[in-house]
């Protein structure tokens, strides 16, 4: 059951990672009308249309992470403490904090993309998107590192 939840959590995170990366790049470096390269096509997406999906994926991923976290605290973390993986535990703590802050930013993020005001500077929207993108990337990478800490390369 825990493994299934962790895999679903990972799959949702992958979808979220893709969506937020597209949107962030499209926000800061919009492509020209006729994108030629792969990088140009990657950022040539209608950014606003990603907002709903990102909010839902982030919320679902946070919810699943919150459930899996219970098992992590009981089954995994004591082993990591005994093995002295303090840095990994510190990085994972940061992931928890960042995810909580990001979760609370979702309403403002959604408003910026779906109900933008005419006099609102686009920098606010871009900054909120970038913060969420950083949180998603951080969480994905740290979650992956902690998940694999006793596996390949250990």
């Amino acid at each position: 059951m825990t493994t299934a939840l962790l895999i679903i959590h990972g799959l949702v995170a992958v979808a979220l990672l893709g969506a937020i990366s597209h949107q962030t790049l499209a926000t800061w470096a919009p492509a020209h009308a006729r994108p030629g390269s792969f990088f140009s096509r990657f950022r040539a997406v209608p950014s606003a249309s990603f907002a709903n999906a990102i909010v839902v994926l982030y919320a679902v991923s946070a919810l699943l992470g919150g459930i899996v976290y219970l098992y992590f605290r009981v089954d995994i973390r004591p082993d990591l403490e005994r093995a002295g993986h303090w840095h990994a535990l510190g990085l994972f703590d940061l992931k928890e904090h960042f995810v909580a802050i990001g979760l609370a930013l979702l309403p403002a993020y959604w408003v910026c993309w779906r109900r933008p005001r005419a006099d609102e500077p686009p920098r606010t929207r871009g900054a909120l998107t970038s913060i969420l993108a950083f949180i998603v990337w951080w969480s994905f990478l740290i979650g992956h590192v902690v998940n694999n800490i006793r596996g390949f390369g250990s």
Partner: protein
Amino acid sequence: MTSSHAFRRFAFAYGLAFAVLYVVALKLDLALITVYPTLGVVLPGTHHSRDVAGPSMAFLAPAMYWYGWTATAALGALMFGFIAALLPEQWTRRLWLGWFWLAPALAMIACVYLTMPWFRL
């Protein structure tokens, strides 16, 4: 139209207040609830094992505070959000919009600072 504006004020105030209150809750260890996953128990408030038994209890029944810190910040932010939603539009327009992304960014830096002890072990 009016409800849309009110939700906008709520959303921005909630995000800003949550970021600030989360750091406060983390620094002062103000968890609304403490979760003991091995026991399946949720206690109101912040409970440390040394309050009720020996330090070894932390290994037998690990306590989780993250849910509590998040709940504390969420509850406080909800109050700020509702207050902001009730305020007249002119009042909130004076606030620099940059605070709504700068405050969370600063809160994340504060979280890094508060997590530094892990990296000194």
